[in-house]
Structure formats: structure tokens, C-alpha cells
């Protein structure tokens, strides 16, 4: 399913989108399908799967540990695409990974593999628009959205360029720093939501872990929230994982409904 179609549906229903991240293959390749299914049961609108990279500079300790477990569990790009193709979800799937894995596979091959396995969008945290022309082209050729990030530090000039190029949704980085659970919502978040003026849906991530934060962000004008570390934390603890993933998804989804 295409990302913009999903957001259109949600708009009609007056709901904010819940985008859930887990790292593919964490802790073992076989676990991901079950976890994704639980998240979908809990009401997740878009699944964001991490393709683990050895040096994840944009991620905090929680997701780093998830990536480490996935790599030790044997997750590879080949296995990743095979696993994603077997998911057969009725909601959009996006892949989040670092540029070297895309570069090494070849941009054309990577985007083709995305399209063939049912992935609708790509998020690359270490690829600013200055360096993304080639990947953007490859994405267009395969009808994949390249999802750009904007940060509180993004200048207006850069913002204009990113908004002109980004498709699917715009990923608003809620705060300076890496991924990870925080209890509050940064003051800069609301400001950033207001600054991002675009028809493309806006989803806010980095630091969001509970329903209260999600509700606050949707109320502030975002079209969706992205939650990662809180789910990865559940996987790390390893107890009642599917039930707890589903319950947290449900809580977040309820609070994203406005």
C-alpha cells in the first residue's frame, strides 16, 4: 500500500498515523514476522523496519542494542528482503537504514528489491538532500517514496528544498539528539510542526514513547507519530513480547485518534 493513500484514509477518519519501528531480525530473523503481526493487531498504520547497519550514528543506546542483536542473529540485506516479501501486509512498510548498505547493494538494485518485496518508502538518516539526488532518482524509477528528515536546526532554505523533494511523509526530528525514549515532549517540537508548511503529511519521531506524548503531538498539528525505542525496549526485555507490543501500539493509536 502506498503511504499517501494511507494518510488519505486516516484523514477521512480524522486520525493521526501511528508509525512503529522495530529492527528487522531483532533478536532473530524468525521473530520479526510475529512482532510485526502483533503491531498491526494493535492498530499500527505504517510499519518501519530497520535494516541493521554496523555503525548506526543516529541511533541511541536502545536501538543500537537492537541492531546489535539483529546483526548477531544473522540478519542481512538478502534475508531482509526475503522476510519482508513474506509479510504480505495491507498497510505500508518503510525501510530505515544507513546509506552504506544501500550504496553497497547498488541504488537501482536496492530500490528494485524494495518495490518487489512490498516496501513503499525509504528513510536514510545519514543522507541529507545534498547527497540524495541519485537515490531519489532510483526511488522515482521504482515508485518508492524517499522520506526526508527535518530537524529543529534545519534552516528555512534547507527546509524549502527538503519539502519540495520529500514524498510519502516528512520525518520531523522532535529534538536534537539520537533516538531514544524521553518522558516529555520538547518545546521545539510544536515550533517545528508549525514551521513545516507542506501538503505532504508530517510525522514526528525521536523520543516519543507513550500515549500522552502522542496525543500532544497530534494536537499540535502533526499527521502522525513515529515510535521506535519503546517497542525495541519491549523486545529487549523479552517477556510477553507480542502481547506488550500490541498493547503499547493500541495505547498509542487510541491517543493518536484526536
Amino acid at each position: 500500500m502506498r503511504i499517501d493513500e494511507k494518510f488519505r484514509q486516516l484523514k477521512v477518519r480524522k486520525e493521526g498515523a501511528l508509525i512503529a519501528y522495530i529492527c528487522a531480525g531483532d533478536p532473530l530473523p524468525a521473530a520479526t514476522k510475529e512482532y510485526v503481526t502483533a503491531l498491526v493487531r494493535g492498530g499500527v498504520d505504517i510499519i518501519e523496519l530497520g535494516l541493521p547497519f554496523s555503525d548506526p550514528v543516529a541511533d541511541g543506546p536502545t536501538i543500537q542494542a537492537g541492531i546489535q542483536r539483529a546483526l548477531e542473529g544473522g540478519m542481512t540485506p538478502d534475508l531482509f528482503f526475503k522476510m519482508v516479501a513474506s509479510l504480505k501486509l495491507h498497510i505500508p512498510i518503510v525501510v530505515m537504514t544507513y546509506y552504506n548498505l544501500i550504496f553497497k547493494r547498488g541504488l537501482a538494485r536496492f530500490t528494485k528489491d524494495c518495490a518487489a518485496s512490498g516496501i513503499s518508502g525509504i528513510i536514510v538518516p545519514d543522507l541529507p538532500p545534498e547527497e540524495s539526488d541519485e537515490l531519489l532518482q532510483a526511488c522515482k524509477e521504482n515508485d518508492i517514496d524517499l522520506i526526508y528528515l527535518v530537524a529543529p536546526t534545519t534552516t528555512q532554505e534547507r527546509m524549502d528544498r527538503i519539502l519540495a523533494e520529500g514524498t510519502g511523509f516528512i520525518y520531523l526530528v522532535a529534538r536534537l539528539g539520537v533516538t531514544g525514549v524521553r518522558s516529555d515532549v520538547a518545546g521545539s517540537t510544536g515550533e517545528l510542526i508549525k514551521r513545516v508548511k507542506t501538503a505532504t503529511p508530517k510525522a514526528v519521531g525521536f523520543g516519543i514513547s507513550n500515549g500522552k506524548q502522542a496525543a500532544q503531538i497530534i494536537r499540535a498539528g502533526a499527521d502522525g507519530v513515529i515510535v521506535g525505542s519503546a517497542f525495541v525496549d519491549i523486545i529487549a526485555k523479552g517477556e510477553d513480547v507480542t502481547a506488550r507490543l500490541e498493547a503499547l501500539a493500541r495505547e498509542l493509536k487510541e491517543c493518536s485518534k484526536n
Partner: protein
Amino acid sequence: MRNKLESTKFGKYGGQFVPEVLMPALEELTEYYEKFKDDVVFNEELDYYLRDFAGRPSPLYFAQRLSREYGVKIYLKREDLVHGGAHKLNNTLGQGLLAKYMGKKRIIAETGAGQHGTACAMAGATFGINTEVYMGAKDTVRQRMNVYRMELMGTKVIPVKSGSQTLKDAINEAMRDWVANVETTHYMIGSVVGPHPFPTMVRDFQSVIGKEVRSQIMEKEGCFPDSIVACTGGGSNAMGIFYPFIEEDVDLFAVEAGGSGMKTTDKEALHSATLCTGEDGVLHGMRTKVLQNKDGQILESSSIAAGLDYAGVGPELAYLADIGRLKPCNSMDSEALLAFHDLCRLEGIIPALESSHAVAYVRKAAATGELGDIVVINISGRGDKDLETVMGMRK
């Protein structure tokens, strides 16, 4: 050949592969660097610190007995005599002064063996800027004297427990810190690596080495050397001595760490010879040659010399290697050790194990004639920090 600062690339290498959060900081840094790099006041102040604090210029020493032993005329560029015992201070004084001009309240850095960290601590103390250094937890144990040196100078050393707990992970962690504190903090990267403008800026600050060699060798020989040999990890001492000779008829040899052999597995390399065997990739904000597996996962590199133990290399070196302007080569751990002892015994100079790799290459290549008659070796640092390692090898 010379890259204008406005270009972020060296051929296809370099660039700015960083999170969006950092892009404005890189723009700001580029702006300040362009503003001050030719500024008279800035350069006078930097020259003052390089001269009176760092002890520059460092001598170019004719190594008579080593020359006789190896069969070529060898000059040693004595960066080991720079304050702190390595070339690293050239860069940290430059960046430290720039950070001061930029009004940054805090400096962060990564360090492997602790040489760059120590140089940061010196610059931080000199300029009165709070300094925090990320160091792999394993390295803090291996190099505890350097940890203590940094602490004595008021720097906070933060052990990094993620990943392999070495330099690569220290860089990752420093970048994460920078992402969170970008508005107040300058990231003082220690080599000609990372996103633009770092490779260009660090090269320029280190070019003082090559500039001095130009006039020193002219004075002694009346001509430029036939070749210059420098060890290469990230490549800052190499770029520093090479760059002022790029357009001259001088052969440049970048000697990487051959470790215990040119073998790799899916997870690790037994060496750190990135220019020799690495493949085009993107790591730590730059496109360059990288030690990686078939999927693009970065390999753990290996070397007896912590300062060469890195899975990437400066993008300009990758470019110069591709166009044939420099020759990538390597020395193994065992060869570096032999050269280390040669220099100790014949010249009374205890070189860093890093620099010993450059000496080792001259040791084996002199006889082939490829180095010509006059060779300059960059002795990038002194070996006091390596004594425990060398003692351990003797047992």
C-alpha cells in the same frame, strides 16, 4: 587538482553524509573556516601557538646511520618533537582557535590510542574551553596513561562501551553527542576524515608539516626529495606532509597497517589497509574507501598501532590513490617492529609504532630503487606510548 573549499568533494569521494541535524553546523563551520583561513589576525595567533606552545618548526633531521643501513639518503621530519609527542597538536590548535573564534563553549573529540585526545586536552586547556573526549572502553584500559594525561589537563574522558569499544565506536559516539549538543559544541575531529569541511580543514592545519619540509630540504639539499613516505590510518600526517608537494615532482607513499596479514572475514580484517584493499563506501559522514563485507557492514580493522587501526581513510587520499598521485602500500606489524628497533638503535630516536610503518616501508623498498635517492619519512609521533606493547612483543 587542488580542490576549492567550496567543493565538498575530492573526485567522487568526500561529501556530507550526516544526519540533517548536523547540516547547519557543517555549514556554519565551513563559513567560519573560509572566513578565517586566510585571515591575518587568525593566522598570526595560530602561528604564535604553533611556535611558542607547540615548539614548531620541527626539525628535518638527516638520519646518517639509518641512511647507510637502508642504502638511501633519509631525512626524518621530527613531528615526534612537537609538544605532546605527535603531529596531532597542529590540528587541535587550529581547530581550537577556530572554536574560540566561533564562540563555542565546549569541545568534543574521539580518540583511539589517546594521542588526538591528548592534543585536544592541550588545546582545550590552552584556549580555556571545556573538553570531553570519547574513547573506546578497551582503549582506555590499553592506554591508561594517556587517559590520565588528558585528565590532568582538565579533560573528561568518556569510555565508549558500544560496538567493538575502539576508535570507530568512539567516532560514532562523538557524532551522537554532537547531534545532541550541536548548538554549543565543536566536534574536533582528529584526522582528515568525516564530513566536509573536516578533511579539507584538518589537511590545511596539518600542511604546516609539508610547508616546513619544503624550505628545510631546499636548504639542506637544494632540491625537493624524490619521495615522501608517511604512515596512513585516517591520513592526517600523510596529507599534512604530502599536500604542499602535490604539484611537485615528488613521489608520495601512503603506508598503511598490514597488521598480521591481508586477510578478511565477514566481520573483521587482520589489517587496516583501507587504501590498498578497501571498497567504495560511506562511513562517518564521508564517501571513501572502506573496509566492509559484501553487504556493506563495516569490518573491525586491526593493527599493532592503534593510530592506524581504522576501517576508513581520508577521502582525499582515496582520490589521490585513484588518480595515481600517491602509492598506497603497507607494512605488517612484524615489519614495523623491526623498523622501530632500527630507528631506536641506529639513531637514538624511539618512534611511534604508527610512524614505524613508514620507516618499515623504506626498509624494504629502498633496495628496489622506487624511492629514488632522497627520501623524507614523516616521524609523526614518538614511541613512549608504545613501550608496553613493544615489551609485550619481546616476551
